[in-house]
């Protein structure tokens, strides 16, 4: 019956054909199978199918329209009142939980519970910081939660008994959220799967525990049929879901089968051969294969930008290696001139796959603009200038430790960087690092930073959401409030940039926001703590039988809930 409703509902969208099994291939397993915790981009595709949020997006080809917030579980996107501090949502009727006792309407209280679950002590969400900052009373709720005994009963009692003062379920249909300060991007934040509602039954389980995974409560068009870690995830239709209560998802296919653990090569091969349909990761096509697809003008290939600055180099301003040379601004600026960014772009397969990047915000993020504080001809680097500046700074024989992940193109990028720097007379020691150790061992561990375990480190950053996402680039990486932050490896802080950012966040005019964020960008770049290298476009590929392949902004991948299969 679902299939029928789906097909009738999509009559307008063209000749959508319901049914079939969508085969998706993934390289890595999901990071979490819990909307509160899922943060990996690939996981977002799954969350699109098995969870719903207040706000979401249409999946369309037009890059602008794709980023316009739409009501999902909210009937519409509200305009904030109270000087931008209060949001009032009307909950869509007919949207149901899939719970063992039978379908049940999703109500306003479920959203409050969803926020509360974010700060479960054992398994806190990585996105938690944004919400505690933004929502009134969230911080104190979370502080209280930490003191609760880690038993399901005590935690349930706390969650159900303690309100977040800024989140109110006025009635089942109405939800209000009060903000600590105006936030022009709050609607975008609510589109994250981390802001999903949670049914009361979810409290019986530790977030993302194996028990939770096997008793998952779906709100989306699909639910989990089976999950085998590292191997497969099979989604089947959620009988509680109603097409008419979901304006954004059509849910044509009957089953979605995700297989994990393949190499990027294998994924590409299988998509080409048609034995699988889509890829879980974005940019999983090896450049060589991409090259070939481009040569044949393969229509199944699409490219989109997701604001990803990847890679860029962090410069360790805390190390005393090389006599503390990197602590000097002139030295860092000298290094900015050294890198052949064009070569990095070439490594990604040329300008069709990546663009030279000169600022902290990637294309697509509000605040991105074309500028270069350290221009070199053709962005190919200027070794002579570097040498000159280094000489001026009185630094000779610079030897830098450059760690890199032994994964994908990263060894190649590291070698390319090495080649660039060596042309400029800077010696690079490559330090291969196990991919999963990379952040924990080298970067987030502040001791390593202070001890000089690394000097310059290539990293990548994707904004946590799309569109008005400058905050999710700037705040975690370039602000320092006294307590070390995970991704601000060198405790970088710039008061001028902070002030500009605060203005931008309070602003409601997109144009003004853009201007202010652009100034933030330039202010940070003037300090030369990072060397932006390239912004990568994501290349998406699918099998020939996939139809209506339109990207979902958050997963940066074709939307599983809107494709159909040609048979």
């Amino acid at each position, binding site marked *: 019956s679902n299939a029928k409703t789906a097909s009738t509902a999509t009559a307008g969208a063209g000749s959508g054909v319901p049914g079939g099994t969508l085969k998706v291939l993934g390289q*890595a*397993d999901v*990071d979490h199978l819990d909307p509160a915790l899922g943060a990996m981009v690939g996981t977002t595709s799954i969350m699109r199918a098995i969870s719903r949020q207040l706000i979401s997006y249409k999946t369309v080809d037009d890059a602008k329209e794709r980023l316009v917030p739409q009501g999902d579980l909210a009937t519409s996107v509200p305009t904030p009142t109270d000087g931008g501090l209060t949001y009032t949502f009307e909950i869509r009727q007919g949207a149901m939980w899939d719970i063992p006792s039978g379908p049940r309407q999703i109500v306003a209280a479920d959203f409050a519970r969803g926020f509360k679950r974010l700060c479960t*002590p*054992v398994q*806190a969400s*990585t996105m938690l910081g944004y919400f505690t900052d933004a929502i009134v009373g969230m911080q104190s709720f979370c502080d209280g939660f*930490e003191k609760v005994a880690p038993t399901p009963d005590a935690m349930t009692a706390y969650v159900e008994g303690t309100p977040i003062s800024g989140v109110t379920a006025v009635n089942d249909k109405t939800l209000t959220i009060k903000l600590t300060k105006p936030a022009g991007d709050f609607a975008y934040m609510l589109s994250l799967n981390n802001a999903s509602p949670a049914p009361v039954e979810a409290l019986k389980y530790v977030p*993302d*525990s*194996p028990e939770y995974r096997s008793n998952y409560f779906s709100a989306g068009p699909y639910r989990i049929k089976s999950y*085998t*870690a*590292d*191997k497969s995830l099979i989604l089947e239709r959620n009988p509680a879901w109603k097409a008419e209560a979901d304006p954004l998802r059509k849910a044509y296919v009957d089953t979605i089968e995700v*297989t*994990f*653990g*393949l*190499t990027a*090569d*294998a994924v590409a*091969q*299988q998509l*080409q*051969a048609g*034995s*699988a349909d889509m890829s879980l990761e974005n940019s999983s096509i090896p450049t060589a294969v991409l090259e070939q697809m481009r040569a044949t003008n393969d229509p199944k290939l699409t490219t989109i930008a997701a604001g990803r600055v990847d890679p860029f180099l962090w410069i360790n301003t805390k190390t005393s290696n090389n006599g503390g040379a990197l602590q000097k601004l002139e030295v860092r600026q000298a290094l900015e001139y050294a890198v052949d960014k064009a070569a990095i772009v070439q490594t990604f397969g040329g300008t069709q796959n990546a663009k030279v990047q000169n600022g902290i915000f990637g294309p697509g993020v509000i605040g991105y603009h074309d500028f270069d504080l350290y221009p070199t001809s053709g962005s190919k680097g200027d070794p002579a200038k570097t040498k000159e500046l280094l000489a001026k700074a009185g630094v000779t024989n610079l030897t830098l430790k450059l760690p890199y992940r032994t*994964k994908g193109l990263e060894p190649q990028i590291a070698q390319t960087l090495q080649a660039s720097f060596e042309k400029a007379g800077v010696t690079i020691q490559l330090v291969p690092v*196990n*991919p*999963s*150790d990379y*952040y*924990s*061992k080298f970067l*987030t*561990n502040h001791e390593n930073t202070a001890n000089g375990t690394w000097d310059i480190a290539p990293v990548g950053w994707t904004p946590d959401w799309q569109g008005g996402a400058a905050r999710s680039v700037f705040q975690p990486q370039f602000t320092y409030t006294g307590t070390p932050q*995970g*991704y601000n490896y060198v405790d970088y802080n710039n008061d001028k940039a902070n002030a500009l950012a605060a203005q931008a966040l309070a602003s409601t005019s997109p144009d003004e926001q853009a201007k202010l964020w652009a100034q933030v960008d330039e202010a940070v770049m003037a300090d030369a703590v990072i060397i932006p290298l390239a912004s990568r476009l994501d290349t998406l590929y699918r099998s020939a039988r996939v139809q209506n392949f339109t990207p979902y902004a958050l997963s940066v991948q074709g939307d599983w809930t809107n494709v159909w299969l040609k048979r």
Partner: protein
Amino acid sequence: MKLSRYLLSRIGFGLVVLFALSLFVFLLFYLAPGDPARAIAGDKANNELLEQVRQNLGLNRPIGEQYLSFIGNLLQGNLGFSFRNQLPVTGIILDRLPVTLSLVVGGVVLWLAIGVPIGIASARRPGTVRDRAGQTFALLGISFPTFVLGMMSLYLLYFLPTRAGFPIFPPSGYVPLTEDPLQWAWHLILPWTTLALVTAAIYARLTRGQMLEVLGEDYIRTARAKGLTERRVIYKHAFRSAMPPLVTQLGNDVGFLLGGAIVIEQVYGLPGIGNLAVTSVQAQDRPTIIGVVLVGGIFIVAVNLIVDLCYVLLDSRIRTAS
């Protein structure tokens, strides 16, 4: 009585091997740099969270205590829980087993079917063209690094035909036997062949060497003097005696491969135990790595025990010793 004692001593040794192995892996990871708590808690975890994770996993207890509880769990068949997804390691490994098993069983059948006859044919007429051909095959097979052969056959047999529009072989991947036996076999043909070619070579050589040795034995002359047909002399008399070293080699190979045909699984993207090993290493998922290494050891020990049993059956001298 002697027999049972022999077997008991073999079992005892197997246990020692496993114990040593467990100690090795445990110490390796205990002494290793890097923080497992951070690996579990994720990159963005704060210090309190890390401490909590350590507490939960018992990572802050003394090493001896940790090892004891590890061994205790092990004895109950419990290899602990994966850092990555909190699932029991035993289950994760059991889940991968059918893939590796399919690969190995098919490979064994194929490589024996290729290697042993070549070896016998070579040994029957040493120095002839046929022998030379067999020897050349064996040398090539032994010298071919598995991943080079794998990459080359993927390129030549899969990629080129597929690009040319005549797909012969399916791309990498695994289809469970229970799901579609035909597809299962079809997907495994290239891995099987690759595995078989590089391994058959060893068997061809070993068989040839053993057969040459046995064919020089006095009892082979006796068999010929009895007027037996050459076939019977070769297969019933000579091959019978040439078998024990082959069985040993087979035991070693099967044991090692069951613990993960790492290279083949990597090249062909098969989600077997070897693949699990590589992914767990990349994810620093220590319980899983420990589990995989130990299970690999268990396979080797178990298969070697089977080999010992086969020896008892094969060798009249051991069998009749009492």
